[in-house]
């Protein structure tokens, strides 16, 4: 049972062609921390920015600010 739910979680992480590779890249780089959490009746991967991730977000916003 537990395994099945975990498999669903993994399937969710593999689902989207652009978002999930980006998520994985950010996780590998230490910008995001994701963990399985129970929300309602489902276990889901919940992701949060790390301190490094928050810093990267502000830098990215400033770079866009130069363009728009």
């Amino acid at each position, binding site marked *: 049972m537990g395994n099945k739910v975990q498999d669903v979680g993994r399937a969710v992480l593999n689902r989207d062609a652009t978002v999930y590779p980006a998520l994985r890249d*950010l996780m590998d780089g230490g910008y995001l921390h994701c963990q399985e959490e129970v929300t309602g009746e489902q276990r889901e991967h919940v992701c949060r920015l790390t301190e490094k991730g928050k810093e990267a977000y502000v*830098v*990215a916003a400033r*770079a*866009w*600010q*130069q*363009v*728009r």
Partner: protein
Amino acid sequence: MEKQRDTYWEMLINRSVQRFFLLWALHGRPMHGYELARTIKNACGGCCDPTDAMIYPALRDLIESGHVACQEETVGGRRRKVCRLTDQGEGAYREAAGAWQRMLGPLNQAVDAALQPSQRKATGCMAAAKGDKK
């Protein structure tokens, strides 16, 4: 590559923005390569500085796909390759503008959420492209 560094994001942003500005620059006005680079650079207000290494591969790609057509002409006593958008290229420009238009609202929100209110005014490429081309 480190994502807390400006260069990472500038590279990523420039890659997509400069292609759009290339179509914008050729929209309705034929240009040669040097003129094209200068026009894009002016439009960006210095935020993107298109190099030959960006302009010529992008142009070649657009020529091969039939979006741009170039021919040699004499400009100010010099032989120059002058390029213009084909009808297909004009269509691609409108498509690209629509895609950016749909993206701008959410993008502005995400940028503003990271910045202080005093830093939020749009002043860069996108603001410049809204103005008239001189």
